[in-house]
């Protein structure tokens, strides 16, 4: 299997050797790290290791810029959690933070320098309407209104078929919130019950005022949610940052008693064995995630047939590797396209997929004609 570019892997896992790299080598590697959304992490890791002082001023400037971005993003994220809590606290419901907000709240190492573009929360399905109207009454608007699109189809699509409400945007701050009721669309080959996730969710263990009162998914579910997002629901292309999150979660949780048995059982129970299989495989091969042999053995039964696996082994690393601007990337583009089609295939039944892609294509055609 083709690995990640060696320098990118070094930057992600332990960037200290990079302090001695040439400018040319850095130019290439920093570009890839930036594309993969991990340059802030690299900047922070180098600073923590005390390796930033002797760097060329241009490079140090670029890293400082990335670092400032990461710091600001965390500040915004914390503030947003504080604001959302103010709106929803009277409802006395379990609000589970997902993704970036959850990693911050749970202190997962990948939170350092991680840029979140929006905030994701999970609530019980019968609370959806109440949460939506509370947010809409407190300054959030449906994101499509802002864009001035005739988003009727999109809106309907979300409400009827998706596992989340259409994104909402805060009118003044411009921040986006996604409200989920489960972690996979109810239309897909695999679905997961939101209720089961909520049951095991744990209160955030933090003194920080903006986090108090929130919940996060339990360790196995937190990892599985990211896994599902990358290998089941998402399109893999451009998803290296998600795999980095998973690697860090694996490293963070691996030492907990019984973690691996619980993980395998939970994946089986929720029907998420296949995506977990892919996660363990690619996180360990591409990013040296510390997955014990016993977990590989146990997850083996979730794997696909030999020929599918061979295909995935060719496609996934290519689609996860960011493209360098000055290199031809036909193979990577093809891999990305194929995995994109796969993601839709997994997301909805064939007829519905045909209808959905048909409507999308028709609208795109309309837009081209009027442009």
């Amino acid at each position, binding site marked *: 299997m083709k690995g990640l570019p060696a320098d990118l892997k070094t930057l992600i896992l332990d960037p200290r050797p990079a302090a001695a790299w040439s400018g040319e080598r*850095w*130019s290439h590697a*920093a570009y890839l790290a930036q594309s993969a959304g991990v340059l802030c992490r690299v900047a922070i890791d180098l600073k923590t290791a005390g390796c930033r002082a002797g760097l060329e001023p241009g490079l*140090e400037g670029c890293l*400082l810029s990335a670092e400032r*971005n990461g*710091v*600001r993003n965390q500040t915004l994220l914390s503030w947003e959690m504080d604001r959302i809590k103010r709106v929803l606290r009277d409802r006395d419901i379990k609000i589970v933070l997902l993704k970036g907000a959850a990693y911050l709240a749970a202190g997962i190492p990948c939170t350092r320098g991680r840029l979140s573009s929006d905030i994701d929360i999970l609530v019980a399905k019968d609370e959806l309407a109440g949460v939506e109207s509370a947010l809409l009454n407190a300054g959030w608007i449906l994101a499509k209104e802002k864009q001035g699109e005739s988003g009727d189809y999109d809106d309907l699509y979300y409400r009827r078929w998706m596992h989340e409400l259409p994104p909402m945007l805060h009118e003044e701050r411009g921040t986006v919130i996604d409200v989920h009721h489960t972690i996979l669309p109810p239309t897909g080959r695999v679905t997961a019950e939101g209720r089961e996730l909520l049951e095991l969710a744990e209160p955030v263990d933090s003194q920080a005022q903006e986090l108090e009162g929130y919940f996060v998914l339990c360790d196995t579910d937190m990892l599985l949610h990211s896994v599902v997002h990358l290998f089941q629901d998402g399109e893999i292309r451009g998803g290296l940052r998600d795999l980095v999150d998973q690697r860090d979660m694996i490293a963070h949780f691996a030492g907990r008693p019984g973690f691996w048995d619980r993980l395998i059982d939970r994946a089986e129970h929720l029907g998420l064995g296949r995506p977990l299989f892919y996660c363990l495989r690619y996180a360990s091969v591409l990013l040296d995630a510390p997955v014990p042999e016993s977990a590989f053995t146990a997850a083996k039964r979730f794997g696909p047939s030999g020929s599918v696996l061979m295909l995935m082994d060719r496609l996934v690393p290519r689609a996860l590797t960011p493209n360098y601007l000055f290199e031809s990337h036909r193979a990577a583009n093809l891999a990305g396209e194929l995995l994109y089609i796969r993601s839709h295939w997994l997301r909805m039944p064939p007829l519905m997929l045909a209808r959905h892609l048909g409507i999308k294509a028709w609208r795109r055609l309309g837009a081209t004609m009027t442009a």
Partner: protein
Amino acid sequence: MGSVNTPDRIISPSNSAQTRRALSCGELKFRVGPFVARIGTGYPLLQQDFLDIYDGYPLAGPDDFVQFNLKVDPVSLLRRWYRPKVMADGGFVNSPFVPLPGDLAILALEMGLNWQVGTKSDQFLIFHSGVVARDPEPAGQGEAGISRAVLMAGQSGAGKSTLTAGLAYNGWRLFSDEFALLDTDSLMLYPYPRPISLKNESVDLMVERLGADAFSRPFLNTPKGTIRYLKAPAGSLISGLRPAKLDLVVFPQYGPGVPPQVAEFAGAEAFAMLRSATVNCDRLGLDAFNAIADLVEHCRFFRLQYDSLDMAMQMVDDLMEKTA
């Protein structure tokens, strides 16, 4: 490109064949102030315009770190020949780049670079403004060996670029007509000398003063009307990285027939005005706030109203003299 790494290598007519080749292979790396940019384009007209307005810019060596990467190419094979359209590509998922007619390819490059600097250089607190500086006399009079800068902010159309251009060709060193780059630790401004984009009436005014040789060819029917790029004075490119201390902040306002006026202001008003000129204040947070507060304490702030470029230049010269 060889492995020469000396700062005296510059883009010039004598190596235009090499420069074109480097552009074609996406290997051209050159220096703009503290940044190195890597540019690729296989579009001959753009190569020609690039050679013209970047004449005299230092080439970067193979060991310099490249912060900005940009390709500008036709949007398709068809559009290379038939009603040519080109588009900038920096490899970003969300960039505001739009296709432009082939004749305006250099605008795509200029906007592409400026957008990257404006959105991805948070090592600096950036002001949307023109900057010029006075370098110390060789004898080392005044504040020992420090260059002193004036920052010109204000709404677009108020006359910043024209005033910046006038001063840059009249005894001042060009820092930028677009972005002031402030290091928030040292409070020093760094030069970002780029070709100055002049629009419509300003073009005629400045061509008359400086002669057409200092300019690019005219670009007609751009989204902002007619544009000509005024080349950065050679002296501002050679002095390269030397930063300057900010002493003077002015908000110029050109108006035909208005009475000349110089009005000083300070304190909270100065803070608010300077804050409103920033590009990335929110992204820097506390560092930006502290830097602006320090500048408000150490600089003098003026509103200038004038009806001729000469008058405005005289005002800035006088103010700098007094601020010394």
